């Protein structure tokens, strides 16, 4: 018999509440039966571990200046 059948199911009415900003992923997500594989994640996946989001605006400004300078030079 399939293991899908063996998996316990939450009885009707037993609903979990979750709070945006508090609830952890494991409390929301249950193991999936089918997963569509995407190789996905965020656009700059590992950036969070490098603190990229905190410096994003500065990086954008650096690039803006460099591009403007290069555009002037290539004209």
């Amino acid at each position, binding site marked *: *018999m*399939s*293991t*899908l*059948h063996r*998996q316990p*199911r*939450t*009885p*009707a*009415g*037993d*609903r*979990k*509440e*979750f*709070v*945006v*900003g*508090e*609830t*952890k992923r*494991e409390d*929301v*997500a*249950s*193991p*999936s*039966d*089918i*997963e*569509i*594989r*995407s*190789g*996905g*994640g*965020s*656009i*700059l*996946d*590992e*950036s*969070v571990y*490098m603190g*990229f*989001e905190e410096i*994003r605006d*500065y*990086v*954008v400004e*650096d*690039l803006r200046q*460099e*591009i*403007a300078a*290069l*555009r002037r*030079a*290539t004209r």
Partner: protein
Amino acid sequence: MQNLPCLQSPRRAWLKVVFRDASMCNPNLMGYRQLLLPLGRALNAVRPGGGRQEEAAQLGDELAALQLLYLLINSRTWAHRRVDALRLDLEGSTRRFVSVDITMPEAYAIAAASRNRIIVPLGMMRKGAIQRLDAKQDSTGLAVLGKRENSALAFKLLQAAVKDFPRKSSATAEDEARVFQSIVAAEPGSAHAVHEAYKAWKERSLDTDSLTARDKRRLIVLDVFASRLVGHYIFLVEIDSKYVGTRTTLKYSLDQEIKYSLDQETSSSDIKEVPSWGTQIRFHFKLPDFGFAESQHMELELPSGLCIKQFLFLAFDHKQVLRQADRRTLPPDRRVAHAFLNPERSDFEGEVWAHTMPSKEGLYRFAKWAAIISSILVVATIIARCFDREVLRPEAIIPSPAASIILIAPALMLSWMSRKPEHPLVTVLLAPLRRIVLACAAVLVMMAVLAAVPVAPLVWHVIWICIYIGTGLMAVYAWSIFRGYKTTPRYSMTMKPT
């Protein structure tokens, strides 16, 4: 840096072959080569504008790389809306259709090699075989940059990210080029080793002792893209330059791979088998490039015969805390679901969870009524056999013409069995209903056999016992299955916004 092969013009490469590489020359021409070498150098030096052209080409490459960096880092300012639609079609394939609304800013439009064309990055794609990729703009085909051009631009991007960065005296341009080339050319199997080689290169080549704030930012940008480009490539397409500053929609679609998890013990491994059956199936999709566009929409479309009970679009931060959510509980029998989020940060991860089950129209209703009617019929036969003198007329005989009438029902039931190719998800979810219908058909066939063929008393009683036991088991099975459809999905929840 300026002597790297990728930055050399084709003209210089040609000169290198003709004048420097003796192995490529006929020995009889060596004399000419010796003669031509200084001549070539002299011609190159005196050619009007030759040096300037080369310098302009280098500046152009650098500009393209910086523009690409800017567009990727700041994508939410020019990519307004992205719709990812997953379609599970009846032919058995799972395709992702992506539609991106963009307005390419003029200052950051990357000039393509083709005349009057610009390059647009549409996100990152995992390295490996991409199946049936199709890109379109206004219903016409869109040119997708090939591996060579893509790798060259990614290489320049890494170089631009670390340009003017302080280096140790032992650092060489060749070493840097080798490491960056290995990053952009890394295959999925070698990604870890390549990333380790990159870290080692950073240690031995970059001088990180006295960095300015800007250098620190550059290093982070390099780290981010080096780690990302090891396993992914930048999906680049070309569009007409007339679309610069004009809002336009670019579309592409590709096949997606499905992974089936059988149970908790084996879910960590990649099992590419279809689970034998399930009343409801949890469906998970980790959205690629969540945070690429200002507004991210997600759609799921199931094949006919299935429906979506609940649809969740969630965003988690790196600590795996839920940060954004859109929950849709759908009306009955909807096979298309839609949700959207406006990503607050580009490092959030977007995920889709869907709860799917057979649609209540079609086989679901047919199987339910087939189980009820077959059970009632079998109970009626028990009553008829207990009170046969009161129920049956004395002239009732076997073979009875009723057999052919009874056989119509199993024939009708078997017609519900699919003869066409179908998506594995349909096979999985409709399997219990098909089993119920088959069991009903088997019960009715046995009854028809008894009505059509005069059998010995022992066989008569044995077949009736089989019919009773079979019907009982089928009724219990059907009851558990239809009860299973009514259970609440495990991840049902009530949103409580903060």
